């Protein structure tokens, strides 16, 4: 063999300090590179890798932070109890910037670079809708905690699941009877001008109509709007209830300006807690909310009749009786949604155990095992309440809370039943190929 340049002649190569360092650095780089297999004894003891698509930056950042806290608490609890199929869970977090394009990239990164077993997380509907195709292409099970109707609409694909939080259509349907009976019959809707808001726009009118009430005006507000007084003249004077769903940082302004505009003549207010997640309801300007009602997924404030599971969940996540971080009363949680992370992880655990999940080659089995689930009993794994699961539309159904603002706290005044939120499936994911 010709070795003209002497590459293989050891006597000619001198190992300088520089090359040695380079080699070391490259080796270290490889070792920390994503996807590097550090577990030589196959997958038996390697952790299950869950890619967490988080809103670390962008308008969803407050949600992202609490989703991470809840996820960390759930993973700690699951790992302490022996993990999944005897394997520990390892969470890898990537920031999606609350942006659909970034979201899809992150899903791709989890699939090809981190080689995670599943992807989990994210809230904002446009990010989920933007990321779902990437999950489908990579055949990557994608468990979202988003509450939009997009998963249950069966417009996404077979790899997308929402087993830990109910969807907007179901929430609206189960609360409409209460609104019509207790708040008023003539409703004006104010909603953000994007996917999540459209769920409210489309599903509230029929739900109220079924109860003998009606939506008399619908006002869409661009999600980046920072001033709202200019929209208020569009609210018809005969309005009895203002139904508001706002997201993003401008909600305080919204409530304050509503108060300034109406003063004591304010119609009844019914809002979605999404408006005020991570916001202290005792903030200056929110006095006008006193006496108004909110939908809550899971109550922010500890209630008198909280179950032991609910108490244990709150302690594990680290929120106090007011729903703020223990030790920092100003750091208010996103309690209405983040419980979904906790519950979703337990669903993943159950499905992986049912499927005898070993590694990425079993992803299809995991999808089928998740679809086979039917109900989750209330308990430490499902502290928000009992749920049913429809494997055809990949969506869970559960109870909703209606809370009243009283003395600077939210008190649950009505709990709906699971049946109140059930509707005819609009399609069937299980007919799609895996």
């Amino acid at each position, binding site marked *: 063999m010709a070795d003209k340049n002497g590459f293989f002649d050891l006597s000619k190569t001198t190992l300088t300090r520089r090359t040695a360092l380079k080699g070391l650095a490259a080796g270290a780089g490889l070792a920390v590179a994503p996807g590097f297999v550090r577990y030589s004894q196959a997958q038996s003891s390697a952790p299950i890798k869950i890619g967490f698509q988080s809103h670390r930056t962008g*308008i969803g*950042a407050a949600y992202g932070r609490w989703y991470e806290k809840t996820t960390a608490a759930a993973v700690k609890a699951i790992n302490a109890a022996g993990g999944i199929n005897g394997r520990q869970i390892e969470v890898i977090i990537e920031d999606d910037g609350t942006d659909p394009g970034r979201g899809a990239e992150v899903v791709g990164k989890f699939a090809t670079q981190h080689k995670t077993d599943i992807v989990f997380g994210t809230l904002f509907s446009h990010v989920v809708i933007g990321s779902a195709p990437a999950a489908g292409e990579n055949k990557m099970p994608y468990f979202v905690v988003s509450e939009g109707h997009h998963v249950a609409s069966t417009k996404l694909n077979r790899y997308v699941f929402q087993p830990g939080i109910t969807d907007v259509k179901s929430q609206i349907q189960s609360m409409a009877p209460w609104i019509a009976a207790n708040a008023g019959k003539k409703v004006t809707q104010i909603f953000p001008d994007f996917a999540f808001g459209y769920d409210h726009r489309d599903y509230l009118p029929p739900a109220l109509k079924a109860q003998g009430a009606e939506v008399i005006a619908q006002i869409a507000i661009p999600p980046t709007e920072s001033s709202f*007084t*200019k929209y208020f*003249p569009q609210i018809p004077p005969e309005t009895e209830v203002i139904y508001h769903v706002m997201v993003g940082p*401008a909600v305080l302004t919204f409530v304050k*300006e509503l108060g*300034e505009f109406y003063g004591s003549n304010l119609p009844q207010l019914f809002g979605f807690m999404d408006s005020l997640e991570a916001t202290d309801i005792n903030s200056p300007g929110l006095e006008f909310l006193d006496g108004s009602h909110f939908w809550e997924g899971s109550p922010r404030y500890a209630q008198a009749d909280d179950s032991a599971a609910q108490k244990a969940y709150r302690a594990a996540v680290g929120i106090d009786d007011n729903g703020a971080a223990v030790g920092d009363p100003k750091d208010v949680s996103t309690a209405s949604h983040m419980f979904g992370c906790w519950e979703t992880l337990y669903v993943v655990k159950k499905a992986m155990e049912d499927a005898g999940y070993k590694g990425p080659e079993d992803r299809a089995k995991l999808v089928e095992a998740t679809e086979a689930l039917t109900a989750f009993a209330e308990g430490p794994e499902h502290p928000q309440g009992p749920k049913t699961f429809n494997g055809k539309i990949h969506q869970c159904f559960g109870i909703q809370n209606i809370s009243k603002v009283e003395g600077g706290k939210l008190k649950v005044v009505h709990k709906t039943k699971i049946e109140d939120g059930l509707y005819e499936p609009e399609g069937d994911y299980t007919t799609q190929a895996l």
Partner: protein
Amino acid sequence: MHFGPHLLLAALEGLVTSAVLALTALGLSLVFGVMRVVNVAHGEFFMLGAVLAWAISTAISGHPALGFLAALVIAPLIVGAIALVAERLVLRRLNYNPEATIVATIGMLYIIQQLALSFYGPEARPVEPPFSYRILLPWFGYSGYKLSIIAASALLLIATWLVLTRTRIGLIMRATQYDSETAQAFGIPVDRVYGGVFALGAMLAAIAAVLIVPISQAHYLMGQDPLLLSFIVVIIGGLGSLRGTVVAAVLIGLSDGIISMFFSPTLAKIIATLLVAMVLVFRPQGLFGTASR
């Protein structure tokens, strides 16, 4: 609601927008006029003003007016100092090269924004207004504080105008704007003027933010809209023209208020952007700008 009161409300809302916009855009316009630097980070100085206002007003207990007034004085000073440091460390080293400074200020935008996210957090936090008086009109109620913003902004604009036209500092600034090389030849420390103007521009944005924060909360992404609107105002009004900036701000603010109330906010944005295009085509120097020599 009838047409009259409806229009009144639209005009009031528009004027509040104009008042804040005029101050913010004036800062951008000054920096461009004197230094020929397109400051893309201008909106972030606005955001910093609001975030600092929150920090200062929560640190000071007692009547909300105390905290607010302290914020109104201290926040712009801190923002000005930060801008001065940025100018010394970055812009001066680039010799104020127009292309390089655009890229550099884009970098500053991201740095400031991410620092705010790291140290202040992702939440929108409210600042209590110094007073909360609700003006009760026969048709609707309106915040007295909002009206005071219009007055405060008008006073500040007049003060800026007086400084620019009646004082020695203003003369030096105008000389630098007119011809920086000749100004330097006449012994004007152009370098220091640049530092001062950059800080002043940032301070104007910060003041505008402190004024608006009691009605719109401090949030780390709040700098984006003011930046875009400021550019629109400055292009329509003419870069470097104080009068043009104020007129364009009132124009854009009022049309935004009225059009978005009677039609839709999207239409208001479309019209504003269309106006920019028209101005650029038919009067590239802006309504009140002077043609470049």
